[in-house]
């Protein structure tokens, strides 16, 4: 699966798509594949503060629970409520099934994240496939 170039990636397998002073956050296709069937996504409420590199929620597959790490700091503006009842949307298309929209604290934080090409290289090395 190609990784969209309109966004940045973390080594913890989140993506962040900037749009001016706001940004949309989700997890990558590699992440959903590694997790397997996703059954539960736990997200913060609008107004919650995200701090870059810190956990902001969790995603559970049948097998395991994994923390979600904030790719950037900011305030939660909107939560994808559809995931509460249809968490499998993340398996179907991880790059469309967004989790949060946030108001960025400092859009320069994104400069330190991985490009699509760098992320692709990173997962190829990590996963060996």
């Amino acid at each position, binding site marked *: 699966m190609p990784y969209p170039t309109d966004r940045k990636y973390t080594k913890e*397998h989140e993506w962040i798509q900037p749009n001016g002073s706001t940004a949309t956050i989700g997890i990558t296709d590699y992440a959903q594949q*590694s997790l397997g*069937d996703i059954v*539960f996504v736990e997200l913060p409420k609008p107004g919650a503060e995200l701090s870059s590199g810190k956990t902001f929620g969790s995603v559970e597959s049948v097998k395991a*629970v*994994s923390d979600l*790490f904030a790719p950037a700091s900011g305030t939660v503006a909107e939560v994808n409520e559809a995931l509460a009842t249809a968490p499998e949307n993340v398996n179907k298309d991880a790059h469309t099934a967004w989790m949060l929209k946030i108001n960025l604290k400092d859009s320069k934080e994104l400069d330190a994240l991985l490009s699509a090409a760098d992320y692709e290289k990173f997962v190829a090395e990590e*996963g060996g496939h």
Partner: protein
Amino acid sequence: MSSLESTTAPSTVRKTALNSVHRQMGAKMVDFNGWDMPVEYPAAIGCGIINEHMAVRTGVGVFDVSHMGDIRLAGPEALAAVQHISMNDAARLSVGQAQYSALLYPQGTFVDDVIVHRLDEDEYLLVINAGTREKDFSWVRGNTRQFDCKVEDLSDAFTQIAIQGPKGVRTLQKLTDADLNAVKFYWVTRGTVCGLKNILIARTGYTAEDGFEIYIPSDEATSARVWYAILEAGKEFGAVPCGLGARNTLRLEGKLPLYGHEISDTINVWEAGLDRFCKMEKPEFVGREALEKSKAEGLKRTLVGLEMVERGIARDGYRVLDSAAGEIGFVTSGSPAPFLKKNIALAYVPPDFSPIGTGVKVEIRGQGVGAAVVPTPFYKRPKMT
């Protein structure tokens, strides 16, 4: 994201004869008790834990369970030896019959749980867990020296394939001359399978569903040929390969114990609720004395089924709390149940908390989340007609 499972296996890990088949099929591999095993197969071929689980409940699923161990006891005193080392009553077995049982330590806790097959007048086959193979074999050998009976580890001689689900019988029947409908649950037969003569076919499994387990020679070419033949034969019933992920959710729905979780060297038979497989009327077996004593003393904890009533998934090792947030026990296995579509768990709690309907909390990342004690097994397969 964190804690994604690694897909590369260290070289010391053991492999079944079907390892390269699993990799070819794109399975996600994990280290399970020192074995490089498939946890699930890819969504691209209709798999994933949920699909694999549903296939077994409604059609048929095929598992490589060659990591399981096999110990053969044969000789004039084989029955006496089996009686001494296992808690069920093997004297009740006819030739061709099998029973669920367990090997116990003198203190009444578990060495392992086993299926005892009586293959012939004086020949028994114990099927044991992968993670406890060496321990079990040396324990069995050490505790049967006084009997005129040969003890052999046949674990590496077999590729063991499980064909599980309501359509398992029709799938396997296409590949064998043995009359499978004549084989009752927990009985075995022998027949030609995929051209291989005298293959042991057992109507057993670990999925709480009807099904078979076959024991074929463990060379890679034969194993792969039979594996693909079964999948092909089951195609019309929606057969899929299944990994350890679905194996775990299937056995959990059926409340089948897993060593290291519901049973272990610190948990005894009464606590685990396996009373009906433990025949105290047998005059002697390892662990019997301690069990008699602990029965008289009464239970301090007991295994219960929990269903989450609030949003959350209980996982292995999570703490169980009472309404005042005091710790009362622990979860042994917890997962979403794909067929029941509920979040379920097994847990040890004091007997006071075991009545059906009792409300408890499971501590999930620091929060007490509501759960209730429910009847088990969570899933019971429909009666065959």
